């Protein structure tokens, strides 16, 4: 067992974990953060994407011990004080989800994408979320949601509050 200290969605945790435990398992099984989902065993689907120190990672390809000292944001910590993040809001408004299973990872990946590229073209969105698979939507409304969120998040755009500003964005 190895000790890991990590901040997840604003709460500090210290746990002894098996060295082989994946961050995805730690979040779900140890912390009960079941909002983060697991869809494959080969890091292809991206359902488990979270923000690690401001960068999106597939939490199935990070060991829990690698997150020692890190700050993790999951889908559960994205909304602040009851206000949805603009990307969450856009996914709902644009019908960017159906069964919802890819959604937490897809939203976390999109948040990071918009941190890197605040005004992506359709093709840039498509390539930017290529690592996250969805079987329901055909991606069209996901792409629309990401571009819609980009508009909302532009400096000077009316909507989001300070707290709901992107949490991820190209690393700290």
């Amino acid at each position, binding site marked *: 067992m190895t000790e890991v200290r990590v901040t997840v969605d604003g709460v500090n945790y210290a746990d002894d974990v*098996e060295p082989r435990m994946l961050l995805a*398992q730690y979040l*779900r099984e140890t912390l009960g*953060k*079941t*909002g*983060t*989902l*697991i*869809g*494959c*065993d*080969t890091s*292809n*689907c991206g*359902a488990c994407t979270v923000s690690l120190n401001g960068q999106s990672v597939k939490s199935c390809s990070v060991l829990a011990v690698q997150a020692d000292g890190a700050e993790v944001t*999951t*889908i*559960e910590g*994205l*909304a602040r004080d009851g206000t*949805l993040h603009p990307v*969450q809001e856009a*996914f*709902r*408004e644009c*019908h960017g*989800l*159906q*069964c*919802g*299973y*890819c*959604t*937490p990872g897809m*939203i976390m990946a999109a948040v990071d994408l918009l941190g890197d590229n605040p005004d992506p073209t*359709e093709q840039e*969105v*498509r*390539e930017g*979320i*290529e*690592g*996250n*698979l*969805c*079987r*329901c*939507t*055909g*991606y*069209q*409304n*996901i*792409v629309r949601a990401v571009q819609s969120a980009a508009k909302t998040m532009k400096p000077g755009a009316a909507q989001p509050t300070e707290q709901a500003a992107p949490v991820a964005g190209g690393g700290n």
Partner: protein
Amino acid sequence: MTTTAEPTTEIGRARVRKEDQRLITGRSRYTDSITPSGTVHIAVVRSTIARATINSIDKSEAEKAPGVFGVYTAADLGAEEVGLPCAWPITPDQKAPQRPVLANGRVNFSGEGVAVVVARSAAAARDAVELVDVDYEPLDPVLDMEAAAQDGAELVHPDLGSNVSATWVFDSAAAGTGGDVSEAIKAAEADDDQIVVRRRFRQQRLIPAFMEPRSCVVDPTGEQLTIWAATQVPHILRTMTTVTLGVPESKLRVIAPDVGGGFGGKIGVLPEEMLCVLLAQKLGKPVKWTETRSECMLTAHHGRDQIQDLVMAVRKDGTITGFDVHLYADMGAYLGLVGPGVPILGAFMFNAIYKMPALRFTCSNVFTNKTLTDAYRGAGRPEATFAIERMMDEVAVELGRDPVELREQNWIKHDEFPYDTVVGLTYDTGNYEQATQRAMELFDYAGLRREQEERRRSGDPVQLGIGISTFTEMCGLAPSRVLGSLDYGAGGWEAANVRMLATGKVEVTTGASAHGQGHETAFSQIVADKLGVGFDDVEILHGDTQVAPKGLDTYGSRSLVVGGIAIVNAAEKVIEKAKKIAAHLLEASEDDIEFANGQFTVRGTDKGKAIQEIAFAAFMAHDYPEGMEPSLDSDAVFDPENFSFPHGTHLCAMEVDTDTGRVNLRRYVCVDDIGNVINPLIVEGQVHGGLAQGIAQALFEEANYDESGTLVNATFVDYTLPSAADLPSFTTETVSTPSTTNPLGVKGVGEAGTIASTPAIVNGVLDAVRHLGVTEIEMPTTSQRVWRALQVAKGHQAQQTPSDTHSPGAGLGSIDPNNPKGEVQ
């Protein structure tokens, strides 16, 4: 999607979904997220060999492993006689092997369960699986369905005496619904004014690949056994658990919580679910199973996998005179819950939208040593649509006709509805001219044909092809009497209950269990309109046999067309009851009470009461009419009289790089007639997702087995689901000729995109290269296959490999593992 002014009714509004708030914030409850205190976890020891007898199973090391409660075979559980159910004996003499919960002495496909480990954690269980030593005696696997169907073939199940499970025939002459196909073909062969077109198409094996792996938790700690399962069919699972294990139905509660997609792939009754029940009973503790993705690819049922031999007789003027269909359908090693019936659902769709005087359909269901097949989005109808829509293009080529014009010549005209088809179905409504005309406008058909001509003339290395599919489907499964005539083991009705609560809120239960479709939103819209209450005042409850006790679940585009109508009928009963109480309270004759927008009023007066006031009065029960119960709550069960028949015209522009074989989907336009639309936003989403799956069959996906019967692409690394970067944005619109078979005028949309799009894409790819001498490219039409077809057409040899999608990204145009440099030999 056509955008018009927002309607004043809830029906027709593009409401954002009620379901989404919890799903976008991580407040979801998928089965694997449910872990009652004391839960033990199981992992299954699986065969690595397609066909073998088991000499011995050594569990000793696994049993000693830390955290292991036990390791069990079927014999250890007393489950050797247990067989998983098949609910669709398509013929009286259908051969059906026992499908065991764990192998009994022999394994019949790679991935079949051999033993089960129970441990403190899922990780400990999986670790211990590695310690179970199974000694196999490998046997030659039966892998080729056509060879397997021949006399003298090696038998998957020797005791059955044949690999052919059943042969099912429909003959329009015998049924009295049309003429004799053999005569039509004979006549065509003897007539210079007719042609006979013969083709063989292959429907490759697909994997449904829903995003949520399957999972099950069984909790025995109450009086009832509670089963949480990632299933499309909680009600069927409850009944079938009783049928399979003998647990009284009244002692079972099945809950399908949030379910992460299904597409038919979660319609089954699983060996692992039954193992969880058996182990929970044995151990007295909650038992959980969650599969890995690879287990899902290996063992969750697959879809499609047919060989289609087609013969069409056509007059040279373009009129179809007969269509003879012969299928081999690969069942895999066992029969799934409805697997044998899947190709039969297609039988009625080979005539599609066309007037045909004679049709015969013969399907042989064949066993092989592969994963079993069962329903996958469209279930039989995509296969049929592919066959007929590819054939229409082939006939157009043979006759030198424009493929749209040839279709129009043969299709049922809008003024010919209702129309009795050659297979005995009655199409209630449709307007193929309207959908096609609109699609061609949006697509710029004429402009793209000009561009195609220009590229051909200039010898452009990138050639353009135009793909067409004018499809119909039978939805709203299904009229119970029809299912009875097909020997299906259940009815096709759906149930609903509408309850008015004391405070005016409305609870609705439905037996249609959603797994991403948006039932909570669409059904709320319907109820809000019917009862004149607020959209947010309606709560849709589903997916729990204790909450919504009666139902037949979700598949076959039935939720709205069958389940929605049950809700409408239950709401009507609520209004009828409320009307009596309103008349009583308003001191008027019931005949004088009118109901609109949630208000009961006395005709010709301003006296009235809101439905919420009536609900409260019924709850208080201080003053209500004699002879009635103080309740508005109502049940309804709706059994449809007919199917519904959505249709549409799908057009695509395919660019093919003739130097590399690379295929690019440049434009996709579809205009679907799904009758009245409850929620255009949800409809658009269903069409998009359906298109992606149908396109993926045409371009990307195939479950590949090697010569030893191993599935070689059992991960998302090499089973190439399309990503966002592999697809364009689609242009989708709807037109409507409302269905006359149900009061909402709806037709169903869940499967439309998948059924229609596959032949459109392949027709388009072929249209791009046909003038270069290419006549056929099997699906998926990967770069390799297209490139090879072009080489062969040029008279070059191209090396064949049996499976060309089993290296990473190969389905998306990557290298051929056997021919990495792509040399021409």
